[in-house]
């Protein structure tokens, strides 16, 4: 069974098509990258996949549960890291994890133990008493990742999880995600950094102007080129910068 399945998914904003009839399957147990230029529709597609944005048409299924017809069944299986969304930021990291644990019906002692481990592994334990509003951008990213992992989901949907994260923390997160996939979990994450996708993912899809323009295993999509070169070719982008600016450093 597919971990995630988009079928004919479509979304418009004020007449502009952000996601244009996407059909896409994310195999269970895969580490799946969703790449595309700015405005390609990655965040919109992921928001519809997790129940934060109602599609204009089409369906999203998570392990067979229709996200919009059976939201309780679908949401119980996923962990979400959205990009640029607020948390109850006057709470500390531990308080947010404790709050989420109770909200998800996790036994208190289990939630406390998991919160302890997550804070320690993600190196947030030194900021034990700091409200999230005082966190750096990278720390906010890490505590949001902790909220996504707390209930041990089967599928993680992560929107730009490595943005603003320091290199050491990025290594930690990569290790956690690899262990998660090795243990049978599935990950889908969006990113602009091709080297990261190339190093982590076994499958990927390329989105451009709201459509899936390429998808499949990493080798199928990139062929003999590097992923960055293949991406530029696929989306038909103009990789410029060699012309003009003759006055610069002359």
């Amino acid at each position, binding site marked *: 069974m597919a971990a995630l399945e988009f079928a004919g998914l479509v979304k418009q904003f004020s007449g502009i098509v952000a996601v244009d009839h996407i059909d896409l399957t994310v195999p269970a147990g895969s580490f799946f990258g969703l790449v595309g230029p700015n405005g390609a529709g990655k965040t919109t597609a992921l928001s519809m996949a997790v129940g934060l944005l109602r599609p204009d048409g089409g369906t999203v299924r998570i392990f067979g549960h229709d996200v919009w017809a059976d939201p309780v069944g679908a949401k119980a299986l996923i962990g979400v890291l959205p990009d640029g969304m607020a948390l109850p930021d006057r*709470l500390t990291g531990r308080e947010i994890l404790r709050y989420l644990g109770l909200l998800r019906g996790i036994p*208190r002692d289990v939630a406390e133990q998991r919160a302890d481990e997550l804070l320690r592994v993600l190196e947030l334990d030194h900021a034990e008493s700091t409200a999230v509003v005082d966190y750096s951008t990278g720390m906010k990213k890490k505590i949001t990742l902790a909220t996504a992992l707390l209930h041990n989901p089967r599928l993680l949907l992560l929107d730009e999880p490595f943005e603003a994260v320091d290199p050491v923390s990025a290594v930690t997160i990569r290790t956690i995600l690899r262990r998660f996939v090795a243990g049978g979990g599935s990950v889908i994450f969006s990113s602009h950094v091709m080297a990261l996708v190339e190093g982590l993912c076994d499958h990927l899809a390329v989105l451009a102007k709201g459509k899936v323009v390429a998808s499949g295993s990493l080798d199928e999509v990139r062929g003999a080129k590097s992923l960055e070169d293949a991406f530029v070719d696929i989306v038909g982008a103009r990789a410029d910068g060699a012309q003009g600016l003759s006055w610069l450093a002359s």
Partner: protein
Amino acid sequence: MVGVLIEMRAAVMRQQLTGKRALGGLALILLVTLLAVGTLLAGLKHYRYAGAGANVVATLSLGWLLGWVTGPLLLGDDAALRMDYFKLLPIAPRKLAYAMLGAAFANVSLVFSLIAFAALIALGAQSGAAAALTGLAAVVLDLVLAVVAAQVAIAVFGPVISSRRGRDFGTMVLALVITLLSLASSLVPFVAARLTNGRSPLLSDVVRAVPSGWGAVAVDAASRSDWSLAAVSLGGLAALIVALVLAWPPLLARRLTMSVRSSRRARAARPASAHAPGPTRWPLASLPPTPFRAVLGRELRLYSRSVLRSMLLMISFLVGVLVGVIGALSGKATGLPFSGLLFTVIAAACFTNCYGDDGTSLWLTLVVPGAARADVRGRAWAWLLVVGPMGLLLTVVFTAVSGQSWSWPWVLAAQPSLAIGCAGLLVLVGAWSVNAPAADGGPAPMRVLKTHVALIALPVVVLFPAAALLFAGTAAHSTPLRWLAVPVAIGWATWLSLRCAEGAARRLESRGPEIFSLARAPAA
């Protein structure tokens, strides 16, 4: 260089004054003009007691000077010429400092302040040409002091205000200002009477002793031909200006090389005792570990830590209390028993935008299966636990103190039912009407309108059965009928609150993504 800075300030202000901002700017100009003309008229007026005019003008000058000093700080530095723009320019600090000080004088606000401070000339003119001339000198010095003090204040307090805790403090000060403005109709006559009846020497001494009062002291002294005091007062103003001008370049240099970011990060790494984990306190400790308890815990913590929530509670409390207390101090204690009711209604109206005010953090609720119902119940109970006891305490204490024993059935019928009923109503309104903050971070016009409508609608909906019984009982001179209002009111409010919370939960369950979209988009 001064010319370049003035040109830059003019360009920034031109860009800022377009579209809706221009309308807002026009309204502000109208308001400030009225205040300036009002100040001038206070200087023209004849007062019965000697020195009363100087007291009034000194007090109003204090208001204007405070406006100059705190305005840019509350708005976040100088909105037109931020000092940060010049951090990287290869310009000598002293040259930049005096250029910025010069450019600060190209400020349209000086026109309004000139009208206002002209009250000093008007005050002096009542006693002759010499006092009027003293007033003229005081006007010039006050205007210069206003500009220089504002620049120095930005350099000294700007970094503090730019930090989060500083902004929190600024917001609380703003809340206090809003509260005082909303009470102006009762506060101004109260203070004016104290200043002009000659029976509050302490208040008069204070407003004359601070630098904003020195101009009025000089004019008052000149009108009594006390030239030495007049000279000392004006000399004091001039000396203060010189001191501030000399202090300005090093302060600016310090400001431009200071990193707000690093100081904020340093604080972030320091454990904050207010947030330290500790034993779970009542009422949370007595509850089973359920999703409802999770939301209740989050909400109770946010009521004590969120600056917006603290500000709204503070405004509600101050307006509720001060309206009654100022009335009582003026000899009308009839309103005192209703302070708790006023506090509760304002607190309810302010929190009718609960989902809009929390913004995108709603995602955390939406991605958890079945969390919507707990979210609504937790929000309603948390508001009731925060506002209910305080409202009841205010009502009981103020009713007892006021001696208005006739009001007991009225307030005891209204207070608990109002708190219970509003708890459900505010989450229902919050789930049906979501107003995100405006693009500039301020409240959207629709949010303000909703709050004002709620101030009227909430008590009407919750209290009409009780009001009917109370009025009927009063008309029929029936004490049992009046007391019957108490259980009827509580019963109605409880039923209403439960129905409203149920409606809000269903709304959040069925339209969660749409509520989220509204909370996410900045209001137009």
